[in-house]
């Protein structure tokens, strides 16, 4: 009982600073926020007694003093350039959750909207009503409820029917104020037969604690293809909670690759509903953590209709006294016949104190389906290490190269060369595991 009271107080603390949720001229949005605020206040923050949070103890988050940001910290554009991705056609930059027009750069394309969500809601409020807060359910999850209640700005990407955006769209979320709570929001709507690639990227200019509590909603219409890359490279003192809700229509395809490097405690919830026949998703994840980091990925692939396919590879590379968690739920609903689902959880432990909890969770209610899953936990291969050392590579260089090799499969699936090079650099230069 005592715990409950403390926890509820902590959730209030997340909201401290603003007495009221932001008001919007868009009527339905104000209403949505009010409902979300009500849920945020009604829901208890999770503890390790909740099955979904068994391994992830948020107490350090609840004990950290954090406040919302009303004014973003001033920042030099040059401080951000290192994160820019040359392959991207458009870039939206958010500093402490607020859109920065000066740092952003968008390319005008027919049938394509890449803008701040605030601007988009003012212009296209009626069309967006069907998506915002509809895909990411805030009724059961306090963090999604808080994000929705404080929905102020974020990124909006829409692609009209049959349009293909060939180059990636980069959404860069920069934490600039230590101790800040930021609630970024992303909405991606890709109409029938259209295609695009979105890179969601979380970084920080400082090394202090803070909370990013993001929600992303992605609607993939019939025959549409969406590639969604998610990078979390915040400092190892940060708290990061992200939820991504994806809705895939008939013969639509969602391809998601998430890479987690930062965060003292990070949690990524990926919920994909394959809501049309023949929908397909490929979901890959890589968590590379060390020290005292905890990285938790919970994915939920919901096969609701027949002929759906999903393929998932989740890899964790864990050093120091770090702790990785993976819970991969696959649901095949009654009637979702001829579903073909395959899940792999592969884990590499780099030290004695490194720890991983991995759990496949298959719930199958149709009889004519193919569902495979497997999990492995291993250490660096002694023969491979010796082979590299026998060619002059130091023990550390050999370990880093083999560590990269373990994660390379996921990194290469991002298919963005500059990111692969950067991630390779981060891993090969690592000095501590």
């Amino acid at each position, binding site marked *: 009982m005592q715990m409950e009271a403390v926890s509820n107080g902590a959730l209030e603390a997340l909201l401290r600073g603003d007495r009221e949720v932001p008001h919007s001229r868009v009527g339905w949005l104000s209403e949505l926020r009010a409902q979300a605020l009500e849920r945020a206040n009604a829901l208890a923050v999770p503890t390790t007694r909740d099955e979904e949070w068994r391994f992830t103890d948020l107490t350090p988050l609840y004990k950290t003093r954090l406040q919302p940001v009303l004014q973003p910290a001033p920042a030099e554009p040059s401080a951000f350039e290192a994160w820019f991705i040359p392959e991207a056609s458009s870039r939206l930059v958010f500093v402490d959750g607020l859109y920065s027009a000066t740092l952003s750069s968008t390319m005008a394309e027919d049938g394509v909207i890449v803008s701040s969500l605030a601007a988009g809601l003012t212009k296209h409020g009626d069309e967006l009503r069907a998506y915002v807060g509809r895909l990411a359910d805030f009724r059961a999850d306090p963090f999604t409820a808080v994000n929705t209640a404080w929905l102020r700005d974020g990124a909006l990407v829409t692609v009209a029917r049959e349009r293909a955006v060939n180059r990636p769209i980069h959404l860069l979320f920069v934490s600039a104020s230590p101790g800040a709570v930021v609630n970024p929001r992303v909405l991606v709507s890709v109409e029938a037969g259209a295609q695009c690639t979105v890179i969601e990227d979380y970084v920080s200019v400082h090394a202090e604690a803070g909370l990013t509590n993001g929600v992303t909603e992605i609607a993939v219409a019939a025959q549409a293809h969406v590639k969604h890359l998610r990078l979390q490279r915040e400092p190892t003192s940060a708290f990061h909670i992200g939820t991504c809700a994806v809705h895939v229509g008939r013969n639509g395809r969602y391809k998601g690759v998430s890479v987690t490097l930062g965060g003292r405690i990070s949690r990524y919830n990926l919920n994909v509903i394959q809501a049309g026949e023949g929908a397909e998703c490929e979901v890959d994840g890589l968590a590379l953590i060390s020290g005292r980091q905890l990285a938790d990925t919970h994915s939920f692939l919901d096969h609701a209709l027949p002929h759906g396919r999903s393929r998932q590879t989740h890899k964790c590379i864990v050093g120091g006294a770090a702790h990785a968690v993976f819970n991969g739920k696959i649901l095949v609903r009654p009637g979702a016949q001829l579903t073909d689902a395959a899940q792999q959880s592969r884990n590499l432990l780099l030290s004695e104190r490194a720890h991983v909890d991995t759990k496949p969770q298959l719930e199958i209610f149709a009889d004519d389906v193919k569902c495979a899953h497997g999990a492995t936990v291993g250490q660096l291969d*002694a*023969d*491979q290490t*010796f*082979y*590299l*050392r*026998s*060619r*002059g*590579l*130091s*023990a550390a*260089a*050999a370990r880093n*190269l*083999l560590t*990269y*090799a*373990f*994660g*390379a*499969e996921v990194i290469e699936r991002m298919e963005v060369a500059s990111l692969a090079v950067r991630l390779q650099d981060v891993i090969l230069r690592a000095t501590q595991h």
Partner: protein
Amino acid sequence: MSHVILKVQGLAATVAGIEILKGIDLTVRSGDVHALMGPNGSGKSTLAKVLAGHPAYTVTRGQALFEGQDLFALQPEERARAGLFLGFQYPVEVPGVTNSTFLRMAYNTMQGARGREELDPLEFDDFVQAKLELLGMDPTLLERSVNDGFSGGEKKRNEVLQLALLEPRLAILDELDSGLDIDALRIVAHGVNRLRGADRAIVLVTHYQRLLNDIVPDYVHVMDDGRIIKTGGKELALELESRGYDWVSEEFRARQAA
């Protein structure tokens, strides 16, 4: 003027508590090619791995001087940088590491150790292409993961490619001939022969005389039960080919008994 590159004295070593090497004496001088022959399980490959510093083996007695340094005081990578190269009997597959990246890292590490200039990826590409042609290697092997899915012959060529890139003082080539057909063997042997020189030595570990037709040794040693029991010239290999190993063991036992 040749000099002693490697001097092994009274070397004994164990793996998982079992003694495999029981007192090895071997001196290798620059310019020499030695062949180490013997039946399966005689300790040939173990000797090669112990000299290269494989962590599964424990040296229990004896010493080895490599270019005047105490070899067993050096880490495997320090031995490599000092100029010792082990060509693996079973080259290790390293999925996820591109062969060209691996080769470049190894090459640059060695260049750094010798106080020479390192090459960037583009420069290295040109440099390695020329070596590939000498070995008749398919250039696409550079873009694949190290030894991953390579045929037996491709793996061995990749070892010789590393040998050619790293230019060691002493190359210990463990069963270079296994997994190679006659044509591949000729090409690989040709590659090794090009590296013979007055300032470097080669130790070939092999079962068969066949390889020694193409890489003609100066000395042939026969190993049995963890010891070198006979040393001779290149003609000893021919004799072993026709008579087998048993007579050498019997001769050795008779000598021991006397």
